[in-house]
């Protein structure tokens, strides 16, 4: 039902652009702030754990890069978006259900499950992988700033680490995860909002369920993808 041919492509296009703006621009700030600190903490923690060992210092750059690309940027970004975007989508659609907007559209002949859900999923599938790429970049920058400016080691060592043992397969893994998590978080949120029944308390519960289920399913999917993609 969701992926039926739209009644009018331009209306769907406009709605997709609006959603892309909401998800993308609306989440930039929080993604930047969270990921810069995640990168910084990763670098500081590993510097501490590897100190006094025979592992070369430049390995920190390599660890920060791979942890950001393979796991932290994509998972943290998706979890943050499950909270921010997921609850927003569930509330938006749920509010429309309660104010009879969905009934009004149904009576006009609009395929509401398609018009309200498809642009959101499409927008998420386009925007979230871009956000994840930025998150990975910011995370690495965070790691760089935290270690270089604290004097733990030199710029050259960090860059050497970043350039070491690079596998393009890891970037592919990041994008696969980003696409899967985008679909999970939007589809769960839209489902919770679309089928909400009752009043404002139920709407609050639906919004909470969207976030909780979204996060749990993302983490489960993360495990299975890790097993499949690294196997």
């Amino acid at each position: 039902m969701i992926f039926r041919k739209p009644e009018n492509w331009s209306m769907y296009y406009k709605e997709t652009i609006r959603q892309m703006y909401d998800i993308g621009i609306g989440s930039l700030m929080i993604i930047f702030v969270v990921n810069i600190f995640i990168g910084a903490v990763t670098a500081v923690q590993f510097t501490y754990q590897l100190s006094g060992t025979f592992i070369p210092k430049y390995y920190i750059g390599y660890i920060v890069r791979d942890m950001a690309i393979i796991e932290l940027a994509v998972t943290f970004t998706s979890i943050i978006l499950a909270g921010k975007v997921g609850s927003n989508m569930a509330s938006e659609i749920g509010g429309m259900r309660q104010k009879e907007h969905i009934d009004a559209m149904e009576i006009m002949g609009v395929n509401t499950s398609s018009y309200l859900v498809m642009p959101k999923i499409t927008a998420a599938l386009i925007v979230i992988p871009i956000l994840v790429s930025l998150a990975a970049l910011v995370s690495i920058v965070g790691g760089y700033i935290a270690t270089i400016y604290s004097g733990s080691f030199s710029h050259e060592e960090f860059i050497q680490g970043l350039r070491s043992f690079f596998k393009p397969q890891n970037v592919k893994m990041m994008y696969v995860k980003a696409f899967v998590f985008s679909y999970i978080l939007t589809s769960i949120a839209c489902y919770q909002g679309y089928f909400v029944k009752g009043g404002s308390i139920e709407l609050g519960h639906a919004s909470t369920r969207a976030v909780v289920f979204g996060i749990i399913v993302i983490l489960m999917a993360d495990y299975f993808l890790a097993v499949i993609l690294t196997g």
Partner: protein
Amino acid sequence: MIRVEGIYKSFKDAEILKGIDFLFEEGKTNLIIGKSGAGKTVLLKILVGLIKPTKGHVWYDDDDLCSMNKHELITLRMQVGMLFQGNALFDSMTIEENIRFPLDMFTKKTLKEKRTRVNFCLERVNLEGINNKYPSEISGGMQKRVGIARSIVLKPKYLFADEPNSGLDPKTAIRIDELLSSITKDNNITTIINTHDMNSVMEIGDNICFLNEGKLEWKGNKSEVLESPNETLQEFIFASPFLQRLKENALKNLESEK
């Protein structure tokens, strides 16, 4: 013309509608009246296909709504307009965007043509010049009229209104009634209004379906309502002490004239 035949509807153990048969006539304002909980809204939602009946048929001319596939239902809905009790105007859109929404979605008209149609509909409900306002910036009565404008923008063959007078002062309510009645007559459409407003019953009730506890208790028109011997109907109509006193005074006057 819309005809309902043996409509039953249950929610879990509660039977809400118990075998309704009624003909909603073309070119007339058809009213569904009854106390709260009588099943009016459920019947209206069945008529527009938002709820499926447990048993029975809804005939739009010769087409049975209950056996339509998704595509046929969408085609039918292009001929249906509906005014909701809470107006259901989209808050984030301007008045013009709200009314234009069905045109944007289903027609290939140019923006100029769509604007002309929107302005015509706004004029029809006496609301010129509010195109760029948002629903929250206008009164409840104006919102109702915008709802009517949106429901007629695609020139529907069938118009539905769920309690169009609820929450309105008597004067505004009368204007809404007059508007719905004149739109019905001018365009020769089938209008079905769900109400418990006595003014509406007496002013625009061309064809009335009175529901009581899920059953069709009485049918007739506005001129037959007062003369009906049906006690449940009389109790419903003269429920307010004010109307009861008026009725008693009128009867006394009649007796004294005799």
